[in-house]
Structure formats: structure tokens, C-alpha cells
């Protein structure tokens, strides 16, 4: 099997496919990249069994076949001397000749017959929908940070996609905080359905998808969710969905509400975080007389800083993890945001001023003495 293609383009595709390669796997075969040639395209695939990536690209040649390439191929293409590469694959002994300019590589491949392709996406999706890539990326970024990285409760390692009629609701939580984003579109009509997608996979996805106004098409079946964009097919296996019902966690009415300048709040909390200590990295927030005070006092020293706010409701005095506040403030772009308090032991709920579709809930830290 012989083909010619652009080395830089091949490298770009390999670099994407590389993202799904396992760090180290006990399944030897998936440590390689699947290299397939059909009449229309050259397809590079990889999987770590949790996610799978397929990238298509053009080539010149006419033969068909498939082989497993060692991951070294990525670096070989990165440092390839000329822009055109000739690849010659012997499917009888799995030897691969790569040549261009004065360089000549000879690699050992492997038989691709039993490569686990089952991970590659729904063949017939149950439902599908489209997004502008940049918009989907933004929505995903606004929830993904709250998903848990600890493996004690598997459900919280995922982002819950709840489909219902014209709505998609994204939920993520690590039991200390919860974020919900609702997206509505008149053209959708989903059957009620939930998919739990591993957050770890979605983080990789965010690294690949660009902030372009091209479309991404998303489809799912009972076991996988697939994202098709540009020439890339990105698939994630779903987690067994045992997500707790979180609707009861969100309190109905607030005891006090403030409207605060987001940038100012972020800067103050960043400064407070400098002295915040321990596992909880707590800052003491005191609301009183249209002023919010951030206070930290620890072994290294103490700080306090006042911020003007618009207060509606009772005074508040509680402790919150600074990281939990900074996570959300960094992501938002709004000038001013709303924070609802529910007493000194109740949760804080961050909301947007004129957008009901998003909320972020944080539990305060139990009073320390």
C-alpha cells in the first residue's frame, strides 16, 4: 500500500489523534494509532477506551488497507524535513517505509484486524443536535470546572446532559458545589433522556475544539456520545447514570441578595487566597450595611478588604473556599453578578443579572473555632 500526502497536515492530524492515546495501557494494541486508507480519505484513529478520536485527511494514492502504527510516528512527522511524505506499507510483514527528502524511516507496525473499534461512536445516533463550536465550548467551560476529580463517587466525575423537549440542561457537581446551565432552542424536540459524560473526556475535548463559528454536530445513543466537527470525530463513552436528583438542593427564595462587581470581587478574593490556609482555603465573608468584607486570618498573617455592594435582605457572616469562588468568577464575563445567601449555614447561589439559565451553588464551610 503506497500513498503520498503532506507531512505537516499529517502531523496536525496525528497530534489530534494522539490526544486519545492511553498513557499506559495493559491492552497493547491501543497503544498504537490505527492508520486506515479507503478510497476517499486517510483516517487516523486512537482510543483509550474511554474516548476515541478519528481524524480524516486527504491523500494521493489508490490502494486500501489498514495497519497499526507505533506512536513514534507523531514525532517522526513533527520533525519531518520536507513538506511531502511518501508512505509505503507492506501489509504482509507490517513494515512501514516513510520517506521524503533525504530522510528515510522504517517502522514496525502491527496487524489492525482486532483493533477495538467498538468505542468509535454511535453508528445510528438516537438523537442529534448542532451547535456553533465556539458556543458549545463556552457552555461546556461554564460547567466543567465543578465536576469532581476524585474517584470516590463515580457519578460526580461526569457532566450530566439532561435532554427534555426543547431543552438541554448541563449539570456538574463535586458535592460541595453544583453548577447548572440550561440551553434552549426552538428547533429541538428531544425525548426525555439523560447522558452522563466523563468530565475527563470533556476536558480533552475542550483542548481540541476551536473557538470557530463552524458547527459541531452532537449525537448520542445508549452508550456513547459523539461529536463531529471539521474533519474530526470525537467519541466519549457514557458513564453508568446514577446521578442523584439535585433539584431539591437549590433553595427557593433567598434571605439576602447582593449585586457585586465581578472583576472587583475576583481581585479581592484572589488577594484573600494569598493568606487562606489549609485544605479549605477559607475566606470569611461578612455582609453588613451594603458592604461585603473579605477577611482571612491565619498563621502567616491576616487581611481584610471591603467591597461596596447592593444589599437586599439580612446581614451574613460565613466562610467559603476561595478556590470555589475564583473558579466561577474567572469563567464569567459579565460586569456584575448576583449572589444569593440563605443564612449563615445555607448555600451561596451565584446568578447572572439578566440570564436565568445559569446558576452556581456553593456550600459554605462549617464555622471553624
Amino acid at each position: 500500500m503506497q500513498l503520498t500526502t503532506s507531512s505537516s497536515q499529517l502531523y496536525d492530524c496525528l497530534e489530534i489523534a494522539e490526544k486519545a492515546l492511553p498513557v499506559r495501557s495493559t491492552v497493547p494494541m491501543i497503544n498504537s494509532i490505527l492508520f486506515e486508507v479507503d478510497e476517499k480519505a486517510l483516517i487516523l484513529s486512537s482510543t483509550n477506551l474511554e474516548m476515541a478520536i478519528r481524524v480524516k485527511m486527504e491523500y494521493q494514492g489508490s490502494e486500501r488497507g489498514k495497519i497499526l502504527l507505533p506512536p513514534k510516528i507523531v514525532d517522526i512527522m513533527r520533525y519531518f524535513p520536507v513538506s511531502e511524505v511518501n508512505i509505503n506499507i507492506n501489509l504482509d510483514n507490517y513494515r512501514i517505509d516513510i520517506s521524503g527528502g533525504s530522510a528515510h524511516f522504517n517502522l514496525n507496525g502491527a496487524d489492525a484486524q482486532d483493533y477495538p473499534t467498538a468505542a468509535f461512536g454511535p453508528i445510528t445516533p438516537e438523537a442529534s443536535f448542532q451547535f456553533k463550536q465556539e458556543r458549545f465550548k463556552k457552555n461546556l467551560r461554564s460547567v466543567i470546572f465543578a465536576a469532581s476529580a476524585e474517584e470516590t463517587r463515580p457519578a460526580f466525575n461526569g457532566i450530566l446532559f439532561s435532554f427534555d423537549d426543547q431543552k438541554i440542561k448541563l449539570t456538574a457537581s463535586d458535592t460541595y458545589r453544583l453548577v447548572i446551565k440550561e440551553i434552549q432552542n426552538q428547533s429541538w424536540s428531544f425525548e426525555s433522556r439523560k447522558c452522563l459524560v466523563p468530565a475527563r473526556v470533556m476536558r480533552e475535548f475542550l483542548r481540541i475544539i476551536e473557538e470557530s463559528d463552524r458547527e459541531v454536530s452532537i449525537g448520542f445513543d445508549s452508550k456513547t456520545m459523539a461529536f463531529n466537527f471539521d474533519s474530526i470525530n470525537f467519541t466519549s463513552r457514557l458513564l453508568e447514570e446514577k446521578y442523584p436528583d439535585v433539584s431539591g438542593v437549590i433553595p427557593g427564595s433567598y434571605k439576602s441578595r447582593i449585586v457585586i462587581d465581578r472583576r472587583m470581587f475576583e481581585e479581592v478574593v484572589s488577594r484573600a487566597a494569598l493568606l487562606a490556609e489549609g485544605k479549605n482555603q477559607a475566606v470569611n465573608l461578612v455582609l453588613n450595611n451594603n458592604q461585603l468584607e473579605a477577611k482571612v486570618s491565619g498563621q502567616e498573617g491576616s487581611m481584610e478588604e471591603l467591597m461596596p455592594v447592593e444589599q437586599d435582605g439580612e446581614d451574613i457572616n460565613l466562610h467559603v473556599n476561595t478556590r470555589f469562588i475564583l473558579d466561577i468568577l474567572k469563567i464569567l464575563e459579565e460586569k456584575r453578578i448576583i449572589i444569593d445567601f440563605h443564612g449563615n449555614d445555607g448555600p451561596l447561589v451565584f446568578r447572572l443579572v439578566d440570564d436565568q439559565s445559569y446558576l452556581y451553588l456553593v456550600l459554605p464551610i462549617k464555622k471553624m473555632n
Partner: protein
Amino acid sequence: MNFKTLTGQDALRRSLTRLVAADRLSHAVLLTGPAGSGKQSWGRALARAVLCREPAGGDACLKCISCRQFGSGNHPDYFFVEPDGRNIKIDQVRSLRPAFHLLGGKKVCLIRQAEAMTAEASSSLLKVLEEPPEGLYFILLAEQAQLLFETILSRCQHYHLQPLSRTEIQGLLMEAKSLSSEKAAMLARLSRGMPGRAYELAEDEQFDSRFEEAETLALSLLSGPDSAYHLLSKAAELAEREDLLPFLDLLCFSLRDCLVMHYCSNDRLLIDPGRPALRQGETAAEGLENIIGLINNTVHELTATNVNRRLLLEKMLILMQRRFAACRK
């Protein structure tokens, strides 16, 4: 390997194939048996049957893509855990847990030497066993089930591997290792019904010479008192042996043959009927029993304690000689 190609264990084969065929296998199966009894072969055959796409009568077909992937060590839904060093550590169990909860087809996790799990690893495994994700099967292999957590044991379907008959092992050895019928029969008698042990003996190139040496030593001890210098140098030589334990084992077997001849003079019960040298019945049976006990004690002390090997062997040889002398009187 599938169930069909494995030897013996008919009851186990019947119940496992029936459960797999009816898709009613417990989500956790525990296979126990002594070292070399075939736990891993049976565990792998069970895993393969569970994962097989086209199982026939509850057994793996060996032809479908799943069976091929399994055979080449590439099955994406087969997880294998074994001790990393002395123990199975919590990180080994924990690192698998994300994969357990992914939706997909059936998954099998085989844990070898499950009793080597640390308490933390056991707790982590227990967490999964308590609320098993659908389609996930655990196969635990253990020599000593009582070392597992009670809470893990109670969640497993427990099967015990039976020793194979001599003829079964003899057949196995003749087929797989192409041994002569006599040699296979002798190894079968030495294997205590454990196919793994029989294979080990068959693959051991030094077996024949070791057997010879053990018999020579037994003969020289039997034939009369040796000088102390000789005994001590013999002990030093033994202490240097890397294969000391199998050697002592064979020494025991040589003396056992003597004992058998004493009691019943029946060739069929001998391990190695081809060597009549040990049959001269000069020593009393009680003495032989006593000496076999002595060797067994030495083996136990060698494996269980951190004793000085040379001193221990000197003691053993001196005592053996004394007892031989005593029972000759």
C-alpha cells in the same frame, strides 16, 4: 484455552457453562485451590466465555473478535490485576474504577492472588462489589480464601478446584509436553494432582539430576554412618542450592518409597518403581516416618522463618543420621 480444552474439574465445568449459557453468572466468582491447581487457567477460560460474542453452550468459541482479542492480550474489556510486589495495592484497584463505570458491553476483572490485597484495596473493591455496575464480572483467585475480607467472601460465588487424577495429569503431560508415558506417570505421581506443579516439573531441566542426587543422598544416609566432616560439608553444599526446597521434596519422596515398600511391597504405589535401590528393608518403618517428619519440619522452618540455612541443614543431617542408626539397631 476454553472450558472444553481444560482437563478435569467436571463439576466446575458443568456449573460454569450452565451459568454462562443462561446468563446467570454471579457478578463475583471466587476460585480457590492450592498453588498449581489451575485457578488462572479456569479463571481466564471463564472470563473468555463471559466476553465471547458467540458462546456455544456457555463456552468461548475461540473464533470471534472478542476471543481473538482475548487470546492476543488485547481485549479492551478485560482487566487483570496481580500483586505488584508483595501486595495488591489500593492504587491498582482505584485506577480501574473509572473504567468499571463506563457503559458498554460486558467487562471482566480477574484478580490473581486476591488474598494479597491490602486492607485498603479490599475496601475499594468491596465498594464496587456492593453496588456492581451492570455487566461487570469479578473473578477472584485465591489459595487461602479465609484471608479475604468476610464481606468480600460473602458476595462471591465460591468454587474450589479439585486435584486431578494421576491419569489425567499423565495424559496432560504426554500431550502438552510430549513426555514418555513412564516419565509422565512419575511426574503425575509427584504433582499431588496439581497440573501447574506437573508442568513446572516437566519444564524443569534439572529435574532428572536433582532426582538422582536426592536418591543418592537418601542412600548414603541409609547405608551407614558418615564422618562428621562429610555431613557438615554436605550441609554447606545443600545450603548453597537454589533449588533446596524442591530437592528436599524429592528426598522426602525417596524415603516415602522406602516406607511404602516396608508396609506393602506394592510396586503400584511407588513414585518411581524403576529404582529398586531403596527397597532393601533394613530400616524400621517408624524410623522412616520420623525422618520424613524431620524433613517436613525443616522445610517449614525454611519457608516460614528467617533461620540460617546452613545451621538448620547441619542439624537436619546429623539428626537424620542418628535416627537411621537408632532404627537399625
